[in-house]
């Protein structure tokens, strides 16, 4: 884009949210609920998590107060944007008795358009990965497509690295490179300002409607310093170049037994993962004879997931953890031309026993003494 970045204040951000609303978007962004940063409706700039940050480690997440009033001074929370594009629960169709047979009908195509506010670089990559899964294969998922079409994305370049972040290792951040309409970099403190860059024509058109000042070379340097500092503070690291072959060549490694002894097969990692896409279908019947078929997020950690007559293909936690990790980091590449991992660290943070995917990779490679912790 040839458009020059601009600098806005908190009032400019308020104007951005108002402009998105007036353009008919449902604006979704970070809010504080249940002691976590979750993605929900944002009506005004006051809904954003001003002055909050988080502490993250394996199996640990705590919100805490910042010394300043930063709006985006946290790392990713338990929600991923997939909950809006690839819904956790979706009615596929409803069939009603119709004389001798059944009449099958679906819900009307949703007309709602989303604007996502404060999408991290790792999350832009995650959305791009789910685009490949749902839109670029031989079959297109019409439900995902309807929600994805026209979504307006405001990215945020990360000013804080979370304790479990490793986007630098996965080449997915912390600076947003592509896939956004607008990207912002926050300068907390006084004056509280944001550098805004357009990534698309419609982003530039929206930018022009905000109260602003032109950016200076000093602003650009400040913004570069923000992401450089974040890149240097990653909570985790994982050598990723050799991972697909490493895992596929070690399907019988003893480490799988070790991790299986810790894994609870709860599926938390798959629910918080921004790229995990598996679903299951269930049927519900009512007394009128109607049937509804719904689709919900599923997890490869459940025993039922691989059930065929006679039993599960993967009855042991060992085989299920191996399935998840080898799919995410290795066979995903063959299927979709990209790793399924964006280094967001959610699976580490939200694992109730703190299993760390970066540590497991190190242990299988055997390159970190004492099992390796994956930390710098």
């Amino acid at each position, binding site marked *: 884009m040839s458009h020059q970045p601009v600098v806005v204040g908190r009032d400019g951000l308020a104007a951005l949210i108002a402009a998105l609303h007036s353009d008919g978007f449902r604006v979704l962004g970070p809010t504080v609920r249940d002691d976590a940063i979750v993605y929900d409706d944002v009506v005004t700039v006051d809904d954003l998590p001003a002055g909050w940050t988080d502490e993250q480690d394996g199996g640990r997440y705590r919100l805490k107060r910042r010394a300043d009033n930063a709006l985006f001074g946290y790392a990713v929370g338990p929600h991923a944007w997939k909950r809006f594009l690839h819904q956790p*629960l979706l*009615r*596929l*169709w*409803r*069939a009603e008795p119709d004389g*001798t*047979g*059944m009449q*099958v*009908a*679906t*819900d*009307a*195509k949703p007309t709602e358009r989303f604007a996502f506010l404060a999408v991290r670089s790792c999350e832009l990559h995650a959305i791009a990965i789910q685009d490949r*899964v*749902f839109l670029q*294969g*031989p*079959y297109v*998922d*019409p439900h995902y497509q309807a929600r994805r079409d026209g979504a307006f994305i405001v990215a945020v370049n990360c000013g804080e690295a979370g304790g479990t972040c490793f986007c630098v290792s996965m080449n997915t951040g912390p600076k947003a490179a592509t896939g956004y309409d607008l990207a912002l970099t926050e300068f907390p403190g006084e004056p509280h300002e944001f550098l805004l860059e357009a990534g698309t024509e419609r982003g530039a058109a929206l930018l022009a409607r905000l109260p602003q000042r032109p950016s200076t070379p000093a602003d650009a340097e400040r913004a570069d310093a923000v992401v450089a500092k974040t890149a240097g503070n990653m909570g985790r690291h994982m050598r990723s170049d050799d991972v697909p072959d490493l895992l*596929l060549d070690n*399907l*019988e490694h003893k480490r799988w037994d070790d991790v299986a002894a810790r894994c609870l097969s709860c599926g938390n990692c798959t629910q918080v993962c921004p790229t995990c*896409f*598996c*679903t*299951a*279908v269930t*049927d519900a*019947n009512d007394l009128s*004879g109607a*049937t509804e078929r*719904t*689709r919900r997020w*599923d997890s*490869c950690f459940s025993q039922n*997931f*691989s*059930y*065929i*007559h*006679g039993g599960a*293909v*993967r*009855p*042991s936690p*060992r*085989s299920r953890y*191996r*399935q998840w990790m*080898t*799919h995410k980091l290795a*066979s995903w590449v*063959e*299927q979709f031309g990209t790793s399924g991992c964006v280094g967001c660290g959610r699976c580490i943070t939200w694992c109730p026993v703190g299993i760390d995917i970066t540590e497991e990779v190190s242990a299988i490679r055997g390159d970190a003494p004492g099992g390796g912790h994956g930390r710098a």
Partner: protein
Amino acid sequence: MPAITEPLAPAEGDPMLPRIVRVGKRARDHNGTVTLTLESADEMPLPTFRPGQFTMLYVFGVGEIPVSISGDAADETCLVQTVRAVGAVSQAVTELQPGDTLGLRRPFGTAWPLEDLNGRDVVIVAGGLGLAPLRSVIYHVLANRARFGNVALLYGARNPADILFRSQLEMWRKRLDVQLDVMVDHADSSWHGRVGAVTLLLPRLAVDAARATALVCGPEVMMRFVAAGLSDTGIPDSSIWVSLERNMECAIGLCGHCQVEGLFVCKDGPVLRYDRVRRLMGVKEL
């Protein structure tokens, strides 16, 4: 679940939507196995299929399962499918009667490489219900017998009562242009044939390994031994094909249930070349 406030719109263009079809004929085979002949319930012709593909059959209010197509691909007026009752949904499918309606989603997946068989010796090895998706190939091969070299059909069943399509097998056995052998794992007093694993038949195959193509379908453990045995007879792994089975809920590569290594069995399979899957078939619980 959001409240149902959206109006119901006519169903179209969504690969997850079933089409309503009708059961034309129902034939009971052995223990709990039924072959259904499905017919169109409206003006639209039934979808065509390629041997080896499967459909998703839905019984309203019960659920949906993948089912092999066991009929003749040359007959486009009906879709013949063979199901064994092993779970709640397959039980419901086998209980459907002529005139009953059910949901059908397209034929899905890869097919046996029929075009590659021309001019070659053909080895078909089936185990148990695995004969069903291979019957479509047998129809094709027998109807076009002159196109192929030697043809061998080896079939293994657990016991004589489990032999599928028994009268057809008897009929095919009378042909002089097909080597047909049937084995059972466990015999009873009625059985006068051979007893043992179907792999025992492999060394006496009357085919030229260098110009043979083998198609194998049965339980995965059986396919693992048969494919390895065929490989040992000199048939290249790239000329051996197997049909894998995994949990499938969408059949379009989106639900993830059938994923194994780099494959979605529903869309990259179920028919796969042995050189692609040999390694993964050897890993337990993959």
